[in-house]
């Protein structure tokens, strides 16, 4: 295998990894902040799917403008996130984890069927993005421009989240409430409102991932959320649940691994991902950056 191929497999892996990161970031944020009570949101993949479908609908209604779809679509999913947190999840925070998982899993099934009812069970073809269609030659071989764009977006989202959490006033409140929600409320944080806001923001991140996936995946299918949520969960687990830094690193590794896996041992593509997860869990049960359990 020559250098050219290696570079291209790496680039493909990076773009896959960045998609997983976009979904895992919202998942991690929700777990990290609401994690005092350990909310693992299975329905996060549904936000990704709904983000893609909403984005698709908006852009096809409004003159095929992808950017407008990306702006409005995820905001619709924010509203869905609000309803889920405010009227359902809020009541199971104090109950054991399996019930939360069951509830969020129920939403996965519900949204899959909802998508079938609204958009139909078939696949929808997606448009190309003006300006980012086509490909650019890299080392004499063509690479999709849009994938390069995704490789750039991932780190920007990471940087944005880092600034939000570490450098802003809201980040400070989030850090305080995620380590001690009771004391946070005793100094004046309206914790239920904060949790709703964080959940909506996490849903928005997942939906952005879905919206950005519209031109990338080519076809939208009702089960598209499940495929990515598994990768996102693996990434969140090996990075350390609740750690954004860990999720970013984990997404890079899983992206590259699956890219090389598909290229060299296609039959064992998924196998590699789970072998890595098992190995990390044996070596460091709390993940790369998780707190010791």
């Amino acid at each position: 295998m020559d250098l050219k191929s290696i570079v291209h497999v790496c680039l493909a892996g990076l773009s896959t990894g960045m998609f997983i990161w976009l979904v895992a970031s919202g998942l991690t944020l929700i777990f990290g902040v609401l994690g005092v009570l350990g909310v693992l949101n299975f329905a996060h993949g549904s936000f990704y799917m709904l983000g893609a479908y909403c984005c698709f609908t908006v852009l096809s209604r409004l003159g095929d403008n992808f950017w407008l779809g990306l702006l409005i679509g995820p905001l619709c999913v924010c509203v869905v996130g609000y309803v889920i947190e405010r009227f359902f999840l809020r009541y199971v925070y104090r109950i054991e984890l399996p019930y939360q998982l069951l509830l969020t899993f129920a939403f996965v099934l519900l949204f899959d069927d909802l998508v079938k009812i609204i958009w139909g069970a078939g696949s929808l073809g997606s448009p190309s993005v003006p300006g980012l269609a086509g490909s650019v030659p890299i080392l004499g071989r063509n690479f999709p421009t849009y994938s390069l764009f995704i490789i750039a977006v991932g780190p920007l989202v990471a940087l944005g989240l880092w600034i939000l959490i570490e450098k802003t006033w809201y980040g400070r409140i989030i850090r305080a409430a995620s380590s001690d929600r009771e004391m946070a409320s005793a100094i004046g944080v309206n914790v239920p409102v904060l949790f709703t806001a964080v959940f909506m923001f996490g849903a928005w991140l997942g939906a952005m991932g879905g919206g950005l996936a519209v031109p990338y995946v080519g076809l939208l299918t009702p089960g598209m959320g499940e495929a990515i949520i598994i990768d996102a969960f693996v990434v969140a687990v090996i990075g350390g649940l609740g750690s954004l830094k860990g999720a970013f690193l984990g997404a890079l590794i899983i992206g590259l691994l699956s890219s090389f896996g598909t290229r060299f041992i296609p039959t064992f593509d998924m196998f590699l991902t789970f072998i890595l997860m098992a190995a990390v869990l044996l070596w460091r049960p709390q993940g790369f950056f998780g707190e010791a359990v």
Partner: protein
Amino acid sequence: MKLQVESINTYYGKSHILQDVSFDVASGEAVALLGRNGVGKTTTLRSVMGLSTPRAGSIRFKDKEIRGKPAHFMAKAGIAYMPDDLRIFPDLTCEENLEIARRLSKRTGYWSKKRVEELFPVLGERRRQMGINLSGGEKKMLGMGRALMANPEMVLLDEPSEGLAPMIVASLARVIEEIRDKGMTILMADQNLKFCRRVCKRGYILEKGRMVHADTMEAIMADDTVIGKYLAL
């Protein structure tokens, strides 16, 4: 009256912790809650703060009923709480721990970061250190500083003298006297009687979740029967 508590009943799950507890604290007064471990002192403070809501009874702060309101409401109304385990935010620096309390309360007044750092100079030295890396004594000062930063009208202090060396306790008493003399209303739960007498004029004694005795600190400390029955370890 700054705070009037009338026959509150607080439960943890099914256990009935506070049974018809009543007491009051006048404006600018420092009052001690006394009693052995596990008699309900912490639960009393938590009930006032809205962290454990009493199922029955009344809590009036500045003549307004506040029972059942959430803790963030109490913080904005002007009550600050220092828990016995301090609960300093581990992922925030010393300075951020102070600032967040000031900004969230949206209250202004005498206390500022500068004034708090003058009161506890070590907090100025540790400004950029993460909460998790502070020593026990530093955490205590930060816990008290954080409560003051909200510019509350009343502070609830849970075991302020616990775990401190006698010399530090003496200087802490001076600090609390200073805070009190600035007009702050103080309700503190503590087991160190001498410390309580120095800071507080009156004391209430709790026993098995009930208020069993109330008097001036002088009278309580002169009464060997009361001490033997409710306070001696």
